[in-house]
């Protein structure tokens, strides 16, 4: 039997000496140039971190290449960020510019720090998930291609803006709290293969999986039936019962959500809210999605105050103004009808015309 339960390598062994020595002693940081963080310790020690974009889905070549670079300029030390960027940890300030030069030469994009749009947090998509309604990698590549100047700092934004892409409502990318998120959705109800279901469906589990109680047992067929009036096409039943299929290339696509955030800075964390209910899958460019995201970014950037996250801005101006400024249609889809729907209705005459 193989060795088990020994856990990951100890992070302490992965830290450059300057971090070990100044662990917990950092005093402040500055951003000497876009994409570069300079952390200064109470001891006076300095650490530069150079952040570069990563496609997240990488090859061994990529791993080896960044390893080479790290070795050359960082004594072999590097890290990844929680948004999947790579950070080169430079202890020796003299090596900073050479590093940047090499990164530039190798077409790494430096950025994602401070007032910028950082990398997209995204999920598997058609690359590897059986539930994927769309391809997260493809959409993310297109959006970031379009917004790269916001990443590199060429164009400034009023505050950080976080984008997430999830290929289905399971939202492995935690789209529910991003400034902008793109979520794959279905628009037709699942089909039940009764024959198969009678063999392998754990019926009680399947019934319990439905958020809206749309699934009822079908004892005759030893299967289940789906109430088309109640089904909201979430696909959760298909996750627990292989005999239920929901994929529909004609009608599947993505929705766009805005105004979420997680930091407690100024306002408490907020959920993202529905902006665009549906855009069809249009690979390889998903141009409507890219356009919509750019449009949202631009409207926000040109109206928000300094430091104002998307959600803070919308809360200040009101959703009616948001829909006006973005020229997006407000539809019956935008009105919540799930459990806490009534808490989202407006109980006040305070609104803008």
């Amino acid at each position, binding site marked *: *039997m*193989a060795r088990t339960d*020994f*856990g*990951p*390598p100890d*992070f302490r062994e*992965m*830290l450059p000496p300057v*971090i070990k020595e100044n*662990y917990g002693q*950092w005093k402040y*940081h*500055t951003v000497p140039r876009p994409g570069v963080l300079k*952390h200064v310790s109470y001891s006076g020690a300095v*650490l530069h971190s150079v952040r570069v974009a*990563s*496609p*997240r*889905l*990488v*090859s061994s070549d990529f791993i*080896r290449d*960044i390893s080479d670079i790290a070795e050359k300029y960082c004594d072999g030390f*590097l*890290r*990844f*960020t*929680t948004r999947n960027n790579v950070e080169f940890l430079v202890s020796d300030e003299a090596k900073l510019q050479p590093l940047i030069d090499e990164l530039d030469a190798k077409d*790494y*994009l430096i950025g994602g720090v401070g007032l910028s749009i950082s990398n997209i947090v995204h*999920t598997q*998509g*058609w*690359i*590897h998930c*059986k539930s*994927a309604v769309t391809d997260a*990698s*493809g959409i993310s*590549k*297109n959006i970031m*291609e379009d917004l790269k100047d916001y990443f590199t700092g060429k164009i400034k934004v009023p505050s950080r803006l976080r984008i997430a892409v999830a290929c289905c*409502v*399971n*939202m492995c990318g935690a789209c529910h*709290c991003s400034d902008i998120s793109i979520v794959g959705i279905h628009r037709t109800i699942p089909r039940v293969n009764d024959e198969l279901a009678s063999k392998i469906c754990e019926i009680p589990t399947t019934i319990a999986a439905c*958020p809206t109680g749309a699934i009822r047992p079908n004892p005759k067929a030893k299967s289940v039936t789906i109430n088309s009036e109640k089904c909201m096409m979430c696909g959760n039943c298909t996750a*627990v019962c*292989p005999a239920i299929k929901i*994929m529909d290339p004609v009608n*599947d696509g993505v929705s766009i959500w805005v105004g979420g955030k997680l930091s*407690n*800075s*100024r306002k408490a964390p907020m*959920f993202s809210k529905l902006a665009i209910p549906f855009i069809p899958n249009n*690979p*390889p*460019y998903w141009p409507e999605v890219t356009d919509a995201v750019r449009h949202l970014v631009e409207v926000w950037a040109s109206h928000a105050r300094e430091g104002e996250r998307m959600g803070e801005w919308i809360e200040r101006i009101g959703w009616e103004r948001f829909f006006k400024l973005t020229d997006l249609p407000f539809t019956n889809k935008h009105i919540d009808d799930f*459990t806490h729907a009534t808490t989202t209705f407006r109980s006040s005459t305070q609104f803008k015309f």
Partner: protein
Amino acid sequence: MDEFKTPLLDELEKGDWPSFVSEIKKAAKTSPGAADLLRQLELSYKEKVGHWKHGGIVGVRGYGGGVVGRYSDVPEEFPHVREFHTARVNQVAGFFYTAEKLRQLADVWDKYGSGLYNMHGSTGDIILLGTTTENLQPCVDELSDIGFDLGGSGGAMRTLSCCVGKARCEKACIDSTDIIRDLTMHYQDVIHRPQWPYKFKIKVSACPNDCAAASARSDLAVMGVWRDALRIDQEAVREYIAKGFKINEQVVNKCPTEALSWDAEKQELNVCTEECTRCMHCINVMPKAISIGKETGATLLIGGKVPVVKGPMIGWVLVPFMKMEPPYTELKDLVDKITDWWADNAKNRERVGELIERVGLANFLEVIGLKPVPQMVKAPRHNPYIFWNPEEVEKRG
């Protein structure tokens, strides 16, 4: 490589943003799996539908999870992705690596798998993307030789992750990487052997900026805070002012609790500690002048999760303040109490937040032995449906 064409995907090699297609192509040079992955993906792009089958229960000896099984639904066309499982490899806390370690990893993975990775998965793992059932066990065995263990999947404690914390951040109130390291080691069994009704995630952000996105993505979010006064370096404040920094506009007026005031005469920034809710704004905007307090610890939030089934949740305050000192016994005890209760009471696939919603937060507090405090709620109830225990009232006259 030249026996197949991927015109749609090739489009995504263009431009400056790094391309995942190029990455797959690089791997495809030596990995037939990567090559077939690209072909199958091209098919998906053409047909606008995924080509993975439902299910996949594969694994390695002694573990109940850590691997996500995957089978192509067009295996005849793309035989090298007939089986294309991913291994979730527990990342290093804080995502720190040495070049050496990464190269070792690449060597093993090139041997047994597709040579493709997610660095990292949303939960935090290194995702080794695509191998066969056969190769799984030897791959994991060799990973163990270089010190990498699997992470979690299924009804288990999931791989824990955190923000960079004290290693590089001046705002860190708690030692996020150490906490994650410690908990990960402590919980190896429940990480590797699913024994719960559903997943349970823990993430640590060392301050309320929540760079680990903990409060939305973990059943238990540990967030660094402090409870004394934030520290103001008046000298540094004056330097900001001298450089034209608009302190009233950018800081004082944006403080959500009106805790700050700028004494223009004395050239002093004052904080009313009682009012400050540690929103981080002033600290974020004036990192050189304002810093976190000294009496640090964590706020614990419970119940964060995504929509399925009962709708999305952002974790709710469970413990306003807990000291965080190794070996984090108080935290572990609480985690054990929570997961025990949850495991005993949850339905299949019911997250802890959903169970709390079902039974009531107050009831939950009682079973795990926490006192209700107003910090737990945005506001008290507004409906009059108050439950009284028979023990709380007198016997009916």
